[in-house]
């Protein structure tokens, strides 16, 4: 159906005269975004074949969830995509609520939307910092860019800390709503963050696209065609950069996304630069969504459930349920098989479908034919988080 480079090249019969060098990139390597290994077969500096080996960060989250009740699962899932913990919790919460048919109050849905968009900004900030770090070097322009993006990311983490008491592993969502009431002055803080981001994103663009070297390094590098992207199950910004207009926020609204008009950013190139463009456009879109919601948070309860006294309070229904939400990295799906007797408080089976894993599966196709320098650029542009890939 598609014409694509064959990543599973027969190395033995490649070219008898060419000496291929096998180079293990990782697991200890500064630019593998966590712990992963890519085995590269090189002809000079050109990559003939690339085999990614994930799994170094496997912690058995899904198996662990079978032993935990639905209340206990939330602090666990915080940790699998450690760059955007808020949306991990939301994916789990939405999946459970839809499975159990629990209504979420409008106030909580608004709050969740704002938190999701702020998380998207903070996650994309980290992506921009590390991507430019990969291209620009840890002692060079990339480091400056990373310092700038982390400066803004701190503001968002401070704002989350104000709401939940912790900067990273929030445990603020629960089945039926949110745990932490909005504190006084939080709305003003969010507004100031949004105002800051509006000023800073154009500065990032100036530093990146204003620099010809950045364009040279990212344009035409790591092209993932539309067909290949669909075939590999890419989602989120990586899919939209390949020209597919797909965004669960608009197509299957969750939270309060049905009440806002989500403009989906799509780019056509499918290369690193297109992925950069999509994420920059999503900065502006997230800023716009937060701005439109922050003044209109409705009054009312934050959760439809009574505060949980016993961890066994929520029981799961029999049957299989799949629900996905749009996280900063794409469609984070949760597949739940309920307990057999309708009384179990733990899922019988739980499977997380992480967008980063699909992004990683594009590596063998995208890397072939490029040089060693491009490996880090392509890997960085796909924005995989190893905690999410390996779980």
């Amino acid at each position, binding site marked *: 159906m598609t014409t694509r480079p064959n990543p599973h090249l027969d190395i033995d019969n490649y070219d008898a005269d060419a000496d291929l060098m096998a180079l293990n990139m990782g697991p200890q390597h*500064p630019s593998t975004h966590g712990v992963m290994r890519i085995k590269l077969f090189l002809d000079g500096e050109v990559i003939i074949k690339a085999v990614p080996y994930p799994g170094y960060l496997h912690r058995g989250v899904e198996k662990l969830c079978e032993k935990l009740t639905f209340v206990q699962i939330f602090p666990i899932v915080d940790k699998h995509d450690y760059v955007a913990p808020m949306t991990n919790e939301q994916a789990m919460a939405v999946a459970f609520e839809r499975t159990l048919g629990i209504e979420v109050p409008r106030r909580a849905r608004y709050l969740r939307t704002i938190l999701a968009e702020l998380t998207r900004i903070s996650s994309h900030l980290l992506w921009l910092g590390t991507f430019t770090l990969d291209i620009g070097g840890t002692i060079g322009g990339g480091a400056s860019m990373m310092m700038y993006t982390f400066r803004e990311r701190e503001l968002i983490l401070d704002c989350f800390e104000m709401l939940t008491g912790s900067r990273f592993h929030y445990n603020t969502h629960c089945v039926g709503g949110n745990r932490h009431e909005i504190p006084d002055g939080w709305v003003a803080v969010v507004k100031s963050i949004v105002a800051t981001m509006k000023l800073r994103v154009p500065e990032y663009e100036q530093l990146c696209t204003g620099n010809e070297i950045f364009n040279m390094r990212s344009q035409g590098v790591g092209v993932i065609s539309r067909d290949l992207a669909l075939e590999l199950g890419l989602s989120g910004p990586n899919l939209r950069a390949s020209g597919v207009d797909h965004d669960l926020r608009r197509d299957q609204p969750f939270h309060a996304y049905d009440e806002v008009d989500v403009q989906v950013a799509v780019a056509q190139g499918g290369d690193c630069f297109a992925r950069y463009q999509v994420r920059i456009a999503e900065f502006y879109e997230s800023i716009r969504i937060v701005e439109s919601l922050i003044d209109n948070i409705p009054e009312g309860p934050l959760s439809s459930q009574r505060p949980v006294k016993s961890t066994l309070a929520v029981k799961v229904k029999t049957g299989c349920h799949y629900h996905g939400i749009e996280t900063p990295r794409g469609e984070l799906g949760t597949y739940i098989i309920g307990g057999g007797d309708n009384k179990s408080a733990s899922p019988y089976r739980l499977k997380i479908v992480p967008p980063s894993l699909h992004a990683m599966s594009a590596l063998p196709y995208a890397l072939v034919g490029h040089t060693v320098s491009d490996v880090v650029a392509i890997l960085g542009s796909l924005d995989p988080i190893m905690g999410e890939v390996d779980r």
Partner: protein
Amino acid sequence: MSELLVNPWFLGFAYGFPLITVLMTVGGLATWFERRFAGRMQNRVGPSFVGPFGILQVLADGIKMMQKEDIVPRDADKFLFNLAPILPVFLVLASAATIPFTGYWDDTGQWQSWLMVADLDIGILWVLALAGLMVFPIWMAGWASNNKYTLLAGMRGVAQGVSYEIPLVMAALVPVVATGTLSLSGIVAWQAENGWLVWRFPIVGALAFILFFLSSLAEANRIPFDIPEAESELIGGVIVEYTGLKGGMFLMAEYMHTAVAAALAVTLFLGGSHMPGLSFHWALGPIWFVLKSGALFVLIYWIRWSWFRFRADQLMELCWVLFVPGSLILVMLTAVQVWVETLL
């Protein structure tokens, strides 16, 4: 006594020791300055605890590096592995020998260059030859470490060093053609009498200066041309396997190389220690010299901390497609201009 003062061996020691001391100190201070500068650029503080304004941080780092365990990889070529860190320091210090750090108008109205270890008639050739030798330590380190990453880095370093030597030499030919001498002191004297080369030959001089500056950045492996180091993809380039002071010597050589490159650009194109109307005493020369090369230094840091890195093949393309033909054309244009001036 007077015989001693013209003995080249004595002069070598008398000028060489202070020069080496000053250059090493400048190299150390340059790291401190760069870290403070980068800190300001990046919204952070930089070294600020050791000594006033953190100026002794270099010393602390040096002591720290000396305390590190000296590890030589088991399968490394030990002789080359240990030789490689010493060579670049030696080469850089030696290439600084012919740079005149000061100069003044004497009573007869002649420009006198002073404060150089050796006033060679072929000073520019000496400097460029030593700069060309800088690929050897990189390749030695890359090969002897017996590591695939250092091998790749060594390959890149040699390709880059050999390629960028051509535009570097060609751009350095512009002052040679213009002034008609290979001696650095002669070039400075010509510039003091006829005007600095950047604007003496209106466009050609400025372009040659830019070309020379960028090529020497590439020779010194600075961003955006630092692909042999390339820590985001090749971890640390050729110095991956070096511990403690050995790795530190590579870094020190890199800093001093940058300093020498800036000094050479000042000497060839910016009039060396000459400042119009302000060169009546030899003691003023070093001030102008340090100010000029300091400005170039800041420019190098500015570029380093705001630009991204080229890819290896793009770097080669830039060299062979733009720099080499460009430098050849510049040399020709200079020659034409000199010829036209002799006719007038």
